[in-house]
């Protein structure tokens, strides 16, 4: 797939998907990454903090469903995750309902050590029920055809 085939999708956003943030999912995620912080699993402890509720670790938003960019499909094998960035505006609380979407923010080509590579920049967003943006995540994905 050449760059020309990605270009029409730049700026196209998926339809937001409703995600319910479950405390069990947060605990399993914290267990998997080996982070013992009680604020991810202990409701009584969380009540003593300024959060008042269980919150999620900084990379937890990766677990959400973001929907599909309609019409955009390509081979998933061999994709390389080059970079990842997060901007946080509010904590993600257990019990939150977040509407998550993704868009292809940019696509460009570069000559690398392994020949021509296509760089895809995805921007993902989580919005709460009050319409407030909770986080923005950007992923740089390297596609080698």
């Amino acid at each position, binding site marked *: 797939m050449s760059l020309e085939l990605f270009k029409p999708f730049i700026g196209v956003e998926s339809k937001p998907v409703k995600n319910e943030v479950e405390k069990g*999912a947060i605990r*399993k*995620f914290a*267990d*998997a*990454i*080996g*982070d013992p*912080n009680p*604020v991810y699993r202990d409701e009584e402890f969380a009540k003593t*903090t*300024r959060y008042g509720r269980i919150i999620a*670790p*900084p*990379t937890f938003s*990766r*677990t959400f469903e973001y929907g599909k960019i309609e019409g955009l499909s390509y081979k*998933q*094998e*061999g994709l*390389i*995750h*080059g*970079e*990842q*960035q*997060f*901007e*946080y505006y509010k*904590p993600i609380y257990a019990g939150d309902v977040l509407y998550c979407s993704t868009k292809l923010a940019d696509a460009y080509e570069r000559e690398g050590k392994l020949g021509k590579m296509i760089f895809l920049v995805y921007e993902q967003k989580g919005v709460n029920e009050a319409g407030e943006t909770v986080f923005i995540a*950007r992923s740089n994905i390297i596609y080698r055809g």
Partner: protein
Amino acid sequence: MANKTFQTGDTIGPLVKPAVTKTQLVMYSGASGDFNPIHTVDEFAKEAGLGGVIAHGMLTMAFVGQLLTETAGIEGELRKFGVRFMNMVRPGDVITCEGKVTDVKTESGQQIVSCDIWASNEKGDKVVSGRAEFAVPA
């Protein structure tokens, strides 16, 4: 308890994580929903030319996330966090996460701390490298 004061040049960490295990990669696949078999099925990863399963880049990023939340403390809040993935992590690797404060600003009763952050394997190769910003009470 007095709030911690951050200064440019301060070191952050180190946080030395227990060696990555294949079980952990299975747990992370389940917890994250990323079931790409290059992380869990050795035969598949070998056929893909990787020589065996590799860790999810996002797992290593999560290790650095733990360093940042522990550094900022329960009163602190992470505002920005970004990394570049530089080298593959494999089962058995011991990952050490570290950082260095590059700037501190005081803004409406808070210290806004900017830092470089990175994680390395036991051979000293950087596996991720990036930047973060967090706020802590002044």
